[in-house]
């Protein structure tokens, strides 16, 4: 690990000031950053520890909930309000990592974790995300876990988070601090970006911009998170889905769908949402929505199976959620 300076921020303003230098990084739980520093993939010259900033509360705000960025993944998953009103988020969190990791990992940090593409981790291989311009060994390499939507020839890595998929499906917003009391709010589904020609940039935050809170709107009536993985615990998603909707007189309302394990960011399935909105549930409709969303999906060899798998997961998830509805009626 390369030497670095360590400091603990007293407040947001001090944190942003300390993180001005180009080589500075924020330290939350460190479960991803410290690992990457050991591999010397991340080589910060300064770490600004934000894990003890007073952003550890989960507060009700009218219809919604405001979550401090330093709230750990286990605290968030186990919170009674989250479990009762946002089971999609609780389930997504609990299906990621292990209890040891969730006890350290933070809400802000989970969003900003980096891809687990093995070519990003292997410093002997070409990776445009790690070293811009070096190429991508995943295209044409072992790419079973890689993207089927929104990728570029420069990068086919996927975002690994379960939590972020849930946040996008729930319509969360992220609040940030930029120093001098300024900050902004952006939708969770606008936080991450597609790789294009600059895959070394994961997200839209500026250097030194600090996530302070995440705000959830009123909870949808129907929520589901499903994750397909190679073993039943402690594995990243092959594909996953977060679904939230209301039903009005038997028709879909406010449908939000986010797909995980398929793209460089949690993939908002806007085309599928549009097809479902206002309609009555039916297997034919679910298939139509899935087909529309995946019309431009593309495999790279080993991950071709993800396209039919994702299609079936979309159809099965809506089938399960609306079957429950019929049984209840």
């Amino acid at each position, binding site marked *: 690990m390369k*030497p670095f300076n360590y400091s603990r921020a007293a407040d947001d303003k001090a944190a942003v000031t300390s993180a001005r230098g180009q080589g500075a990084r924020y*330290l939350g739980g460190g479960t991803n950053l410290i690992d990457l520093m050991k591999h010397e993939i991340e080589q910060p010259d300064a770490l600004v520890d934000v894990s003890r900033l007073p952003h550890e509360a989960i507060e009700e705000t009218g219809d919604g909930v405001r979550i401090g960025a330093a709230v750990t993944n286990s605290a968030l998953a186990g919170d009674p309000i989250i479990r009762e009103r946002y089971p999609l988020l609780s389930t997504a969190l609990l299906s990621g990592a292990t209890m040891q990791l969730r006890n*350290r990992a933070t809400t802000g940090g989970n969003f900003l974790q980096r891809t687990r593409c093995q070519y990003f981790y292997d410093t002997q291989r070409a990776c445009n995300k790690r070293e811009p311009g070096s190429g991508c060994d995943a295209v044409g390499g072992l790419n079973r876990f890689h993207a089927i939507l929104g990728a570029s020839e420069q990068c086919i890595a996927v975002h690994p988070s379960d939590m972020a998929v849930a946040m996008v499906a729930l319509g969360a917003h992220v609040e940030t601090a930029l120093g001098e009391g300024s900050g902004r709010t952006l939708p969770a589904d606008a936080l991450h970006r597609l790789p294009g020609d600059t895959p070394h940039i994961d997200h839209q935050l500026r250097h030194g911009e600090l996530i302070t809170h995440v705000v959830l709107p009123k909870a949808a009536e129907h929520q589901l998170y499903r994750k397909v993985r190679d073993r039943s*615990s*402690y594995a990243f998603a092959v594909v996953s889905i977060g679904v939230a909707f209301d039903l009005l007189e038997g028709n879909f309302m406010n449908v939000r769908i986010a797909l995980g394990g398929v793209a460089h960011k949690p993939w908002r399935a806007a085309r599928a949402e549009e097809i479902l909105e206002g309609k009555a549930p039916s297997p034919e409709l679910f298939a139509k929505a899935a087909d529309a969303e995946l019309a431009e999906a593309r495999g790279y060899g080993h991950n071709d199976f993800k396209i039919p798998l994702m299609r079936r997961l979309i159809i099965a998830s809506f089938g399960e959620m609306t079957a429950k509805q019929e049984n209840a009626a």
Partner: protein
Amino acid sequence: MYPLQLTINGKAHETNVDPRVSLLDLLRENLGLTGSKKGCDHGQCGACTVIVNGRRINSCLSLAVSHDGDEVTTIEGMASDDGLSPLQAAFVRHDAFQCGYCTPGQICSATALLEELERGEPSVVTKERVELADEEIRERMSGNLCRCGAYNNIIDAILEVAEARA
């Protein structure tokens, strides 16, 4: 070097650390507490699991300097003057280890797990409320690998203690 105060197994420690030193290396190399083990050093195996402020964590993925003021419990802090902790005794009784390398991490992990059960904290297999069953313990222990494959006996040992407490 950065000043650091820690309470480890009830004893106060004051030391200075390079910020690169992990909590695991501090325990093992600086303080001679070699019970916590370095398996993968990347948060994948759980051999380094210790309890910090009542929560189990991977000590390999945590910088020591970030733990100023924290309370740490390691395997060395499990037994008391009365003998082994209930979990330690159950591991012996159930033959829940072979080579023993993962065992300190397993026991620290399981010790914190019992508290999580008592607080009613959910896992991904929990339905309405936590029920003591194989599946629940397996899911909660998935961060601790055992290459000797003593899993069945580890689960039995943990379940026995959990049931005795319930």
